[in-house]
Each structure stands twice: as C-alpha cells, then as structure tokens.
C-alpha cells in the first residue's frame, strides 16, 4: 500500500512541491540570515554579528512601539478570546434566539471585509464619541476583528463535540452551567488556546486598522516598521523582523502542541 502510494509521486509533483516550498521560505530565510550581518549595507555580507539587535535594544522609539504592540496584542487577544468563546457557545448551543442571523453575519463580515473599511469605520465611531485615540482604541479595534477568528476556531471545535456528554452530566445532577464548565470547557480549552494565539499574532501583525485607530505617540511596531520600510531598507528592521518571526514560531509550536493535545484528548473522551 505504502509503496504503491510513494510510487505515485511523479518527478513533476516533487518539483512543484520543492519549488513551492522554496518560494514560501527562501525570502524569510534570507531575511533572518541578513539580520546577523555585520555590515551597514544590507546587501554586503560583512560577517556574523548581533550588532543590529543591539541597535534595536537601544532604539527608544522602536522599543516603545514593540512594548505597545505586545500590550495591545495581549489585552485584545484576551478580551477577544472571552467574547469569541461566548459567541461560539451562543451560536452552537443557543440554537434559536432573536437576531441570530444578524449576529452570525456580524461575526462573519469582518473576516472578509477589507481592513481599510473596518479601520475607517471604527475611526469614525471614535471621532463621533470623542474618544482619545491611543492604546484603548487600537485594542478595541483589534478585539473586534480577532474575536471573529476566535469564534470560528472555537465554534468548529464545539460543533464537533458530542453533546450527550453534557446531557449525561446534567442527568447526574449538574445544572447546565456546571455541565459546561466541568465537561465541555476542559474539552475545548485547546481550541480556546489556539484562538488566543491566532488573535495575538493577528494583532501583532496589523498595520492598517492600527493606523486608523491609533493616536499620535502611540504607534505599534508594525506601524513603525511600515514607515521605516517606506523610506528604504535598514538592517535594524531585519533584526526586529527576525525577533517577531521567532516569537511567532514559538507561538505556532505551542498552538500545534495544543491542537495535538486537543485531538488526542478528544479521541479518548469522545469520538470526533
């Protein structure tokens, strides 16, 4: 069986795969390598060095932006995970309620709507409310966008869970809330964790919405990178980008561990 399947991979398939993967990864690998370049010129190799990392840790403005980004990402991801999980529970377990279609439509729309529109509309709201733009306006904007992603992730996990587990818990005397907290919640924790990490990375990545909703003096890291990049390539940016990539890589490993945990636990607890 195995041999037969391997026999079916043609040279064409292998070439397509290899070229595809090279296309996806080479630019990132080159960027990471050049972040350790000692030379001031981005294109001339001057030997290995941590110089640009030092430069970053002495750059007050960049550090502030990075700190701002991390705070926004952590706070917005946490609120988004709370709200997104509640939304998923409401959609999967709440069955019918008034305005359910509108609700799921509102959660679906930001996934596909261009970021310029989301950003513009939130800015118009903040202006109308006379809200001072800064940390909280960006955080609210990111929460609104990312909770939709969290809802999708948690919703699909919740929908695949066997509901009879909860019904059994209720037959044994739990009230619905207890049954949810004691039985369902532990089973969907990995999906919730994956949702949080997705929300965190999406927030850490966003330029467009943040540009609309942040105020002067509270730029996030992507906004700073963006304005630097428009002026040309700087080796320091390579170092910052490499650190962001490293951070996200760690998160991906954690997320896939959570997913693995989720599927093996689900297999032992209930049929998928």
């Amino acid at each position, binding site marked *: 069986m195995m041999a037969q*399947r*391997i026999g079916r*991979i043609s040279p064409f*398939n292998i070439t*397509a*795969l290899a070229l595809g993967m090279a*296309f*996806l*990864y080479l630019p*990132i690998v*080159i*960027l990471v390598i*050049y972040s350790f370049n000692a030379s001031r010129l*981005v*294109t001339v190799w001057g030997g290995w060095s941590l110089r640009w990392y030092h430069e970053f840790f002495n750059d007050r403005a960049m550090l502030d932006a990075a700190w701002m980004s991390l705070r926004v990402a952590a706070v917005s991801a946490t609120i988004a995970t709370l*709200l997104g999980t*509640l*939304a998923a*529970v*409401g959609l999967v*377990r*709440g069955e019918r*309620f008034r305005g359910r279609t509108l*609700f799921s439509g509102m959660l679906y*729309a930001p996934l*596909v*709507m*261009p*970021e*310029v*529109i989301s950003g*513009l*509309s939130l800015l*118009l*709201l903040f*202006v*109308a409310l006379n809200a001072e733009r800064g940390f909280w306006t960006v955080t609210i904007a990111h*929460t*609104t966008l990312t*909770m939709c992603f969290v809802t999708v992730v948690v919703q699909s996990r919740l929908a695949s869970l066997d*509901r009879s587990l*909860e019904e059994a818990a*209720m037959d044994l005397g739990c009230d*619905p*809330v207890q049954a*949810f907290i004691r039985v369902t919640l532990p089973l969907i924790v990995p999906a919730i964790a994956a949702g949080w990490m997705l929300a965190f*990375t999406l927030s*850490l*990545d966003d*330029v467009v919405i943040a540009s609309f909703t942040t105020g002067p003096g509270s730029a996030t890291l992507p906004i700073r*990178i*963006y304005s630097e*990049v428009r002026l040309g*390539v700087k080796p320091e*940016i390579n170092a910052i*980008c490499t650190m*962001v*990539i490293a951070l996200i*890589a760690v*998160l991906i490993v954690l997320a896939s561990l959570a997913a693995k945990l989720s599927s093996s636990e689900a297999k032992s607890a209930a049929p998928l």
Partner: protein
Amino acid sequence: MSTRRIFAQPARYAAIAPYLWMVLFFLVPFGFVVKISLSQTAIAQPPYVPVFDFSEGWAAISAAFAQLSFDSFRLLISDSLYISSYLRSVVVAVTSTLILLLIGYPIAYGMARLPQRWQPIAMMLVIVPFWTSFLIRIYAWINILQHDGLLNKILLALHLVSSPVVWLSTDTAMYLGIVYSYLPFMILPLYATLSKMDPSLLEAASDLGSSPLQAFWLVTFPLSLPGVGAGALLCFIPIIGEFVIPDLLAGSGSMMIGQTLWLEFFTNKDWPVAAAAAVALLVLLVPPLLLYDRLQRRTLEGDR
C-alpha cells in the same frame, strides 16, 4: 430532549456580551461610514457636516434626510481617478488570482499525492508563513528586489543581465508580493478538495485507456472545481481591498481603490469621499461574496 431545552437558556445568554460588542463596534461604525458618505465635505474638525443630530428628535432627523448629499458618490463616478482605481483593483485582483491558480494548483496537487503521513507536515509548512507577519514577508521581498539586492546580484553573476534591473516600484514586484502573500489561501482549499478525491477514479480512467494527462484533465480537474472556486474567491476578495502591498511594492502610477481611500482620508482629509469610496468598495465585493457563500453552502451539502 428536555435537557436540551433547559440547556439552550444559559447558552443564549452567553451571546449577549459579544452581540452587544459587535453591534457597538461593527454595526454602528458601519452606519457612520454610510452616514458620512452622504454628508457634505467641510473644512472643520471632524471634516464633515453632521447629518443626523439625534438630540433634537425626529424633526431634526427628517430635516436632515432632506439634506442628504450624494455629492461624494457623484464625484466617485465622475472623476477618472476613482473610476481608474476601481478598474485597477479589479484587474489586479483577477490577474493575481489567475497567477495564484497556476502556481497553487501544482503545489496542492503534489501535496495531495504525498504519502499519507507526510501530508500533515506539508500542510503545516504551508500554514506557517500564513502565521508569519505579512508585513515582514513583504519586507523580505524588498530586501531581495532592491537595486543591489540578491536577485540582481544573482542575475548579474549569471550574466543574464548586464546592469541591475529595476524591480521595486513596478507592477511585477506588486504581483510577486501579492502572489507570495496569498499563496496559502489558494493552496489550502485546493488541497482540501484534491486530497478527498478517490484515487480509484484515476485508476478507472487509466483502465479505460486514458493517459495520465487525459485522466487529469477529464477526471481530476473537473472534480476539483469547487476547490478552485473557493481558492479563487478566497484570494480575489481580500486582494480587491489590498492597500499595503501595492503601496510598498507598486509604482506611484495608478492606485487600487484601497489606496485611493487611504489617500482621500489621510492626505486629502476628504472624509465624505473616503467613506463613499469605502461603500463603493463594499458594493464591488458583494457579488464575489455571494458567490463564495453559495459555493460554501453547496460544498457543505455535498459533504452530507
């Protein structure tokens, strides 16, 4: 059965907080966009004439309705800048989607033909760049494409060109950036349909005398069309509104509608026109979104 009904109660309450949040931060702001797109431009802070003033009751609202202005929309359809950026968005999105299909299909096909245990790894490898910041990925390309960047160095070393080629700020660079950023969006739905396909169908085709190429064209490709449609729309829809990639990689010539909106908003400070451009962009997106929705529904029904 009765337990189920009891359960529905608290679950419904769970939706209250996210519901209110989405109404306040999605629906209401969207109403503001529509409202401002219908108001007059003004040199003020905020730079538009308020349309509604709810504090003065119904009389004021109906008076305001009489004053609604379609000037911004009139400007949108009369000024060639907007029409050309509208058109450019469509052209760029269609072209990029076609390139993505051409590149993404062989990769997805190769993934689906891998031995079963390698497939999750290949899928992971496709998803990882999607998690990596897209700004960083675009920046990585700027590194490569710049005047004395790696690409020109390689081309010079191979004597393929005699002097550095200008890559940055060209449409080529923009398409490269778009294709690079959206490739996972194309590969994943294609892979999803291709990997579900029954290999015995191909064996049957070859038993009946078709060559591998014929079998692909007559059996595999038609069966993968739902994946092709999903992938194409999944790329087309966000590319239409793209702002950052054309801004960083394309030249300063013609703009996409997302860029025009940005310029109108931040540089010209004409909020009503920017809001009208946003509404126009959404209108542009309605047909592909409806198509995608129908396609998804049909695929889900087909699965059952």
